[in-house]
């Protein structure tokens, strides 16, 4: 049923079988779309030919999904799922190895009073903290995600951005969160943004390791592409940049750096989920989504999970395909978790402050 919807985007002969964006087969699938990325003109025509977005309708849909009432067993499931999807983040000039190690300890055992709490998905740090985080996390299974490419502004020459990326990968980063060149995108230089994402993806390959296979040591780092949607402003831009990044090989698309006034919002995230859904229908390639910044409460997190559930479905409801970029969210999730298991409200002194 879904592939016919995709005809507008790519003339596929058969219904595509799902492959992960980081898998070996993804490149072949992207090659089937090579005509739209052949040159600047083709790419521009394609991106501008995508269906427009009606802002009022999009916001209304996100708001309606936000009214879903998630209670009891569904809430318990959602809280544990949300915890397992967190990229626990510290991106401060004041970060120290001590701070990063503390965060790593929390990521492995989020609730010191309840060892049944799931661990978070990753610890997200600046490149120079990758080695520290990697060591602290050991074989816990929690990934190290590193921002790169002159985060958060992305205003540096390409060789600098690539060196930044390689450095983080060499230090052991499992995931790279790159920022796009918003200036290039806003001035219509789509091909430049496309090529840059492709180059960073190549830089994610681990020297000596097998590229594009299972995550973990030796394999390529997974690439998350940050759009900084607060700077791109329009929903049409968000849909276009989502397709642009996915065509260039993004494993995840991510809303924001958390460093500007407007970060992740439900409508922007919903729109990106829809783009991922349509890209999957067209190519079979599964891409993840990461809203980041401004998600602080359990209630908010659950709204995002509802959007994922009703837009992309179950297949995306794992830490492999959906993440929250957040720091304070975790403690609220833990307090709600304690409330569900004990029946009493706890307080900020019953969760750890890092």
């Amino acid at each position, binding site marked *: *049923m*879904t592939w*016919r*919807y995709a*005809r*507008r985007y790519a003339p596929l002969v058969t219904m595509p079988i799902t492959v992960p964006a980081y898998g070996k087969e993804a490149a072949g699938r992207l090659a089937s779309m090579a005509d739209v990325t052949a040159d600047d003109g083709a790419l521009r025509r394609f991106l501008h030919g995508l*269906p*427009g*977005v*009606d802002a*009022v*309708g*999009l916001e*209304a*849909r996100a708001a309606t999904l936000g*009214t*879903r*009432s*998630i*209670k*009891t*067993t*569904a*809430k318990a*499931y*959602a809280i544990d*799922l949300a915890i397992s999807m967190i990229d626990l983040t510290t991106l401060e000039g004041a970060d120290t190895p001590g701070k990063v190690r503390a965060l790593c300890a929390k990521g492995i055992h989020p609730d010191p009073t309840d060892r049944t709490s799931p661990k978070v998905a990753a610890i997200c740090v600046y490149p120079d903290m990758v080695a520290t985080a990697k060591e602290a996390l050991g074989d816990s299974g929690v990934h190290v995600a590193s921002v790169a490419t002159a985060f958060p502004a992305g205003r540096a020459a390409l060789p600098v951005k690539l060196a930044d990326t390689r450095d983080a990968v060499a230090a052991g980063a499992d995931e790279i969160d790159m920022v796009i060149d918003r200036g290039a995108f806003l001035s219509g230089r789509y091909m430049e943004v496309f090529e840059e994402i492709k180059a960073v993806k190549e830089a994610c390959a681990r020297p000596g390791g097998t590229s594009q296979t299972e995550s973990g040591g030796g394999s390529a780092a997974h690439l998350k592409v940050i759009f900084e949607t607060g700077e791109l402003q329009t929903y049409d831009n968000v849909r276009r940049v989502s397709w642009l990044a996915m065509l260039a090989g993004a494993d995840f698309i991510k809303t924001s750096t958390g460093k500007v006034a407007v970060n992740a919002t439900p409508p922007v995230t919903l729109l990106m989920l*829809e783009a991922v859904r349509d890209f999957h229908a067209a190519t079979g390639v599964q891409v993840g989504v990461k809203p980041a910044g401004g998600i602080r409460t359990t209630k908010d997190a659950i709204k995002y*999970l*509802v959007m994922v*559930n*009703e837009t992309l479905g*179950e297949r995306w*409801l794992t830490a492999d395909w959906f993440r929250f970029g957040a720091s304070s969210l975790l403690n609220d999730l833990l307090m709600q978790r304690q409330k569900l298991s004990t029946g009493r409200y706890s307080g900020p002194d019953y969760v750890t402050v890092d």
Partner: protein
Amino acid sequence: MTFDYAPAPESRAVVDIAPSYGLFIDGEFAPACDGKVFKTVSPSSEEVLSEVAQAHADDVDRAVKAARKAFEKWSALPGAERAKYLFRIARIIQERSRELAVLESLDNGKPIRESRDADLPLVAAHFFYYAGWADKLDHAGYGQNPRPLGVAGQVIPWNFPLLMLAWKIAPALATGNTVVLKPAETTPLSALFFADICRQAGLPKGVVNIITGDGSTGAALVAHPDINKVAFTGSTEVGKAIARTVAGTDKKLTLELGGKAANIVFDDAPIDQAVEGIVNGIFFNQGHVCCAGSRLLVQESVQDELLDALKRRMQTLRVGDPLDKNTDIGAINSAEQLARITALVDAGEAEGAERWAPACELPGSGYWFAPTLFTGVTQAHRIAREEIFGPVLSVLTFRTPAEAVEKANNTPYGLSAGIWTEKGSRMLWMASKLRAGVIWSNTFNKFDPASPFGGYKESGFGREGGRHGLEAYLNV
């Protein structure tokens, strides 16, 4: 493990339904003169909610007399004084909105999400809006000191019981009329609760009278010689009968009747939002909406893409307990309506249209119909011409804007229409060509008290809402 939403029922405890209700005449509840009653049931469970009085013609007469008596003082009040009562009613509705939302969902079968987020806010907004007009009638464009008509006889349908009451009563009272209102037979409860709100607001006796009953009560009301105005919302069939009754009298008449709205999707439409608009257009309130977008006209070049997206979206609709906060589609209002929907859907299949519905488990008791769409529908099919008044969408196609206009207008109705395109000039061109009272662009089923609402052709005449809505209750 899957993300299954646990039941999230809104509490019934917030509403206290009495075992029986009388007629609200001259500020008092009283049984019918002959003591007759009928039961009102919850369509989602067939549970009897209460017994209400079946008004006899003599009760109607008593109600009209009470309204006539109250008219003199009420119409003589300064507009600002009438506004105070209306503002008070609006605020009480807001304060009691949860109770009223639960009541409405119980008696009507609509999902609590809609009664809570659409019906009740609009009800309060309508009273606030017309309260604002009450002391500004001199500036409404009808000259100095426009006069009310007198006693208004109002008959309302079961699809939006309290909202249709607000649409009728708020402008009538703001302009200085008094009213006798008859709610629909299957949904009398929220109007009776409104009677209580009138008492709570200290509204003078007889200004609002609520009489419950079946079609015979409504017929007695519109035929009563001492009413000056008849306002009816409901089926075209009954509307025609009322028009015949009123013909030759000096009663002023407004009719808001059926519809078979075209929801027109062009190939440059914002597809995801168009899908939401189509869903909202036909599945909102189980499709029990006179302005429902029941005919989808889709440009052939985008048909497959749109229908696939629509079907995918329909699979996520949650049909079930109206009081569950996660329900998208509730119960069909009555067994009678369910039979009417089923008959038309059967006719659609018999005439060769292709029926599709998502896999969807329906509750065992109560009246239910799965969201359904028909493809391969032509203008010649009954399901393209007759109002189904249920969650059933007929899909037709077109090739050019001119053909879209032609097909959209080729109906005896003309209540509403929708246009989906990113191109502003086409939007405006279409709007100027479509013969429908309400035209939405890149949205559907959006209501606002400031916006006039009403139909062309067999969808009725007269406008409700906005400044235009005042005219229906003024002697101008």
